């Protein structure tokens, strides 16, 4: 018995070890997957529609989508100009204002109101650049929601959205 032993036995050990490892890995799948959003949360994250008609110029509203605050700003002429009269290359996160709004709807700025530093909610129409100011660690965003000064590394993110009509958008 023992003369045939080593190779046969080694194979057996390796095979069993491999099967055991597969089992352990498979066991981890449900244990990890259960922490991902469940299907009711996913379903609740469906797109939402927002009516823009009641928002007057100079006003900003906050809506929630997937648990995130979304700022919708009706910008004035001067705010749009302020956002466009900047040397894009000089910005920390260079991006033209035109790339951050939908063409033909330049007055509407739709951004996710979460500071790109560490996730606080910036206050609209405040700070040195008249856009947003994050009180947590002092990040200043301009009227296009771009980072201008402070520790935040990137511009406020734009959520996926589309204009259904001139006064209605769907977010998501």
């Amino acid at each position, binding site marked *: 018995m*023992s003369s045939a*032993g080593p190779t046969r*036995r080694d194979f*057996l050990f390796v095979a069993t070890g491999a099967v055991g490892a*597969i089992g352990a890995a498979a066991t981890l*799948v449900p*244990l990890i997957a*259960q922490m*991902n959003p469940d299907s009711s949360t996913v*379903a609740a994250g469906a797109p939402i529609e927002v009516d823009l008609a009641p928002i007057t110029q100079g006003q900003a509203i906050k809506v929630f989508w997937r648990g995130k605050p979304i700022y919708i700003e009706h910008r004035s002429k001067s705010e749009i100009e302020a956002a466009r009269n900047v040397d894009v290359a000089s910005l920390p996160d260079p991006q033209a204002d035109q790339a951050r709004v939908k063409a033909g709807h330049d007055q509407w700025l739709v951004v996710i109101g979460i500071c790109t530093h560490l996730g606080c909610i910036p206050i609209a129409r405040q700070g040195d650049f008249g856009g947003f100011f994050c009180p947590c660690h002092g990040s200043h965003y301009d009227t296009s929601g771009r980072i201008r000064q402070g520790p935040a590394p990137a511009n406020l993110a734009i959520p996926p959205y589309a204009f259904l009509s001139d006064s209605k958008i769907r977010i998501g």
Partner: protein
Amino acid sequence: MSGQSTYQPRSRFMQWMEARLPVMGLVHSSFVAYPTPRNLNYWWTFGGILSFMLVVQIVTGIVLVMHFTPHVDMAFNSVEHIMRDVNYGWLLRYLHSNGASMFFLACYIHMFRGMYYGSYKEPREVLWILGVIIYLLMMATGFMGYVLPWGQMSFWAATVITNLFSAIPIVGDPVVTWLWGGYAVGNPTLQRFFSLHYLLPFAIAGVVVLHVWALHVVGQNNPTGIEPTSDKDTLPFTPYATVKDAFFLAMFAIVFAWFVFYIPNYLGHPDNYIPANPGVTPVHIVPEWYYLPFYAILRAIPNKLLGVIALFSSIAILAFLPWLDTSRVKSANYRPLYRQFFWLFVIVCVGLGWLGSKPAEGGYVIASRLLTAWYFLHFIVVLPLLGFIEKPRALPMSISESVLKGKGAAALLAAIVLAGLAGFARPATAAEQVAPPRVNWSFAGPFGNYDRAQLQRGFKIYREICQSCHSLSLLSLRNLGETGGPDFSPPQVASIAAEYKVKDGPNDQGEMFERAGRPADRFPAPFPNEQAARAANGGALPPDLSVIAKARGYERGFPWFVIDAVTQFQEHGPDYIVAVLTGYADPPANFKLAAGAAYNRYFPGNAIGMPKPLSDGIVTYTDGTPQTADQYAKDVTAFLMWAAEPHLEARKRIGFQTMIFLIVLAGLLYFIKKKVWSHLHDHA
């Protein structure tokens, strides 16, 4: 006998570490070099299996807590949320609920093994008592866990068990109020049970450490019951005991998986799929199968205080076993008389369990009293006397000399335990109930799947007939499009959803408003509240249909319930629903029917509040299926089965994969075990 550390770290780092914190040395001496008697049989693998089950329960429990809400208004629904929405939630919950049963099954085998081989005797008294403490903690933990889903059985188990303490003279009532945190079982009770249910498993783990520690001080007992005298009598734990344990653990896991994937509700009770109702006690309340023997003892005594005392003494007496048994021979293999009394005791315990599941009336009570009496006589009279009367057989000189016996007995024990386990599962329901006819379901059996067309037809029936009175509150409209269900396409789901009116709000004016339904919405209820539903239905409340297919059943009787565990017959609920839907008839001449009720052959008590809902031709099928009441009943029932168990197909599919995996693993481990041990047989 304590493991001597022969561990020699090889690397410099490990030597450095070992000199400061000798963890590896401890592990090595406890689980590698630790000498185990060479003649241990498979009954000795249950300690390892129990450790495994404790880990399974703790891991799945921690995960379930991430999704469970311990509040009377939300507990039931959050369990259903786990079953429906959480990724693999159904798997984790079925693992946990069936895991409790497997834990107790292994525990009982472990305890009976200890009794058979006299493992509680000197020098293992403390080891045994620690085991009894673990068992007590397990019972408390299992009970409180059973309360958490807040179904009917949960609620009434909590009420009955806490009321045991009201038997205490003078302080009984204040103690019970204190346990409840109120004047009845309620939210404070649920929350404290939740807290303790989370705590106690860690207490168990702590006592398990002591148990294992004590074991490693005195060493394992063995089938001969004589202590090892030389190195020839023992083998190092690794690899010999390790592979044996691993192989049998894999075998045990196959049984576990069978329950989890194929008959997950077999050991539960349909009534626990009905949300707790403090106003109505189910006709037959029974505890989980693992408490049934003690429940029988409780009910056998006609006096409240004495019944409670008997119940607690029947457990406490186990702790005195080392001193009640006066024989100096440990193993029943060498005690011809004790051996017979041992088996008699096993039969008495199983018998008590069976009686615990029966209604407390007539012959059952008498039988319970006889068996209860014997249970105590076994400890108080038989065991002390046997030590003096019995003439033990000659013991072998040493373990290595002994020959293994008792394999037949082992198989018998397994058979009895399994039969008992199955026997406890289905308590009696009202005897007058007629068994519904069997229906051939596409979703029955290990490879059963729902029939999509049937589910779609069933939904049509629900929508056109049932929905006017019955809610489906746990389901969302989006479920209609999910895989494993009726499988409507997303546009179909959206248009079905839009046909429902859903209450939403408040809007900016502070008013509630109605809007078209969306897939993410729940099915709207036909009535705004219970009172409105009752008022519209002559005082009767049409039950919610979300889990009705699992909340109904009927008794199959012996021997069918045993066979059902093997054939995976699980469709008691659907069969019953079809029978009720088609069971309307004219009442017999002598039957007094209350006003507004209808006669139904299969409904318990025969007087049903629901008027006959289905008749031929009332719903139009477009796929050519016969438009008969029979067909309607089957279709809507299949739909309700899906509503109750939406992940049935995934369960059976993953179950099959798991079974294949476990069989391969067990096979490999078996060959490794043979290899490792064959080496030994050659040279021994």
